[in-house]
């Protein structure tokens, strides 16, 4: 977030000393969901490659934005980090300790440090319970406080997130969407975690409420020194909140880097296409801009394309893209923090809407102009 953005030197290290440690490290994370068939004896017939080899690092105090189209595996990655799904392969380490596929019991102490804020403020609060007991849940589960002490802490939390503490006896149905999301934030904040995973926390809210919730998250980060993983498909929101951004496509990270580098000089053709679909609130500029229109739809994660998963739709694709997944590394003169997984990264000033692919993409489907704009407006 802008206020908490650490100054980064060209080696990619924070100038700010205490905020530079790696808090979370994900290596080679894979999650395949089996598709089963059969009534009594179930046989695995295929696998959904939801997350397919992701490396990620989050430093303490920063906000990592995770963007990508619907179904690219962002939320699955978040749940892998939160330990809600067992991982197929790879490791997650948090604050120096390996938390990959820990048993429930061993995971418990880490749950206090890793919390989640969910997308749907209507679905994430149990409609049959009063707000006070929902926010008090973390204290109860971890045996931190009870009775009058818990009530006092719950009311403090409600005040911190901007809710009227008098309302702790109400039911979720009596709050608006934005207020409900504040309840979710208060619950996540209760145990003073180090890392909060925000899984599209504002995409279900009105635009005016989005700003309130984002500002709240921003204030809380400053106040409590939180680290965020911020998942969204709204590129402008991600740009506003993030220090670093990672772009995902079909379970893989395509490009990652500091927010200004990535938005200023997108290297991956997919990032370029995504950014060109962001609506510009100025009709004159919007008309003069070249939109990059991709062919077809996102391929099925059940049968992801070989090599680079983006090759069936990429305007710069060549034969090598079909065969080999490019490594995620700095290209051209980019600093080591800005890494791109592409055989043919986009140099500054190139207009990739003029490029023609060197492979046959006829199986991909027709040019569909609206496919990306739908996701970037967050609707």
């Amino acid at each position, binding site marked *: 977030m802008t206020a908490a953005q650490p100054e980064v030197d060209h080696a990619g290290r924070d100038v700010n000393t205490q905020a530079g440690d790696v808090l979370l490290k994900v290596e080679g994370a894979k999650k395949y969901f089996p598709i089963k068939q059969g009534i*009594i004896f179930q046989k695995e017939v295929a696998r959904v490659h939801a997350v397919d080899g992701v490396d990620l690092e989050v430093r303490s105090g920063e906000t990592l934005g995770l963007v990508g189209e619907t179904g690219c595996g962002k939320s699955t990655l978040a*749940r892998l980090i*939160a*330990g*809600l799904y067992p991982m197929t392969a790879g490791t997650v380490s948090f604050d120096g300790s390996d938390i990959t596929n820990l048993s*429930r019991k061993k*995971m*418990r102490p880490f*749950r*206090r440090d*890793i*919390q*989640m804020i*969910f*997308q*749907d403020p209507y*679905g*994430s*609060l*149990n*409609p*049959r*319970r*009063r707000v006070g007991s929902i926010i008090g*849940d*973390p204290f109860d*589960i*971890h045996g*931190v406080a009870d009775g009058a002490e818990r009530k006092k*802490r719950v009311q*403090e*939390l409600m*005040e*911190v*997130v*901007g*809710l*009227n503490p*008098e*309302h702790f*006896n*109400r*039911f979720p149905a*009596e709050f*608006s969407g*934005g*207020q409900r999301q*504040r309840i*979710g934030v208060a*619950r996540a904040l209760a*145990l*003073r975690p180090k890392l909060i995973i925000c899984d599209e926390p504002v995409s279900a809210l009105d635009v005016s409420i989005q700003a*309130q919730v984002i*500002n*709240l998250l921003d*204030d809380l980060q400053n*106040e409590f020194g939180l680290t965020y993983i911020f998942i969204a498909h709204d590129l402008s929101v991600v740009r506003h909140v993030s220090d670093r951004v990672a772009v995902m496509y079909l379970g893989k990270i395509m490009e990652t880097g500091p927010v200004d580098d990535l938005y200023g000089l997108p290297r991956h053709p997919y990032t370029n296409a995504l950014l060109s679909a962001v609506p510009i609130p100025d009709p004159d500029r919007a008309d003069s801009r070249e939109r990059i229109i991709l062919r077809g739809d996102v391929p099925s994660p059940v049968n992801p394309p070989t090599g680079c998963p983006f090759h069936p739709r990429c305007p710069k694709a060549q034969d090598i893209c079909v065969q080999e997944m490019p490594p995620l590394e700095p290209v051209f003169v980019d600093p080591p923090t800005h890494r791109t997984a592409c055989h043919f990264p986009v140099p500054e000033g190139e207009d990739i809407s003029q490029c023609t692919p060197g492979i046959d993409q006829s199986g991909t489907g027709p040019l569909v102009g609206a496919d990306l704009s739908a996701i970037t407006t967050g609707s």
Partner: protein
Amino acid sequence: MTLIAADEVAEQKGGGGKDPQPTKAIEGRAPLQLAWARLRKDKVSLACLGVIVLLVLVAIFANQLTDLIGHPPNEQYRDEGLQPNGLPVAPSSFFWLGGDEVGRDVLSRIIHGARVSLLVGVVATAFAVLIGVTIGTMAGYFGGVIDTFLSRTMDVFLSFPFLLFAISLVAVKGASLRISIFVIAFFIWANVGRIVRGQVLSIREKEYVEAARSLGASDLRIMVVDVIPNLVAPVIVYSTLLIPTAIVFEATLSFLGLGVPIPTPTWGNMIATSQSTYLQAPWYLLFPSLALFITTLAFNLLGDGLRDALDPRAARVLARK
């Protein structure tokens, strides 16, 4: 772990959806309170509820009522209660609803029969709900092998032939109130189990369950705190509809002589014994049948009303079976 300076933080965030003035505490209305408010507007359901409350009172105070009438249920009035030719007497000022084949007061027997019917109906349903909710929640929540095993078990229970099983069990164990309750609960719990399992399948995918898991809650806690409270509405509705089923089952057992042993009056055994004289003494068949009919109807209509009150979004047309 204390939240220092919470007040200052809140102040910095002016206008974030928080009322600046201290409002008076508004007590949130629980979903069940809202349902009650809706039910109160439904005249049919209220009438049925009235009938059921009356029935319960009659069952509780059965002894006092029959004392008031002056005819204990098993007292045989051979002079006043039987016609000279041995047939039951018609309704009169002596026997308001007539007499039966050995000169007992039908009204007194119906009043005492309500005891058995309600006791068996409520207790058997309570057992069925207890077992059904437990098994159904486990099946739906854990899924996988546990679900397969428990669901197939429920299928087995649902495919038992009720009467054959009841007859053979009673033949072995002897007829009693306890056996009746056991047999009925044994046959209806799987219905509850199936419905609960289906509900749990959808509840466990809710984000609030995921939120509880990410907080580190145990499976038991999630089931008790997050899953079961959300089953309250369907379970209330379904058990209201199961009570009349259980009452009819009990009457069936009594009718066949497999229920509560005579001379304890039940509606089922009254209907059974009235068979031999129903042409000459139709009241003896009519009144116990009417009692059974009114009770069943009241519970069923109340169940429908409760369903509408607890889930106002479900259309009435769809809600009717």
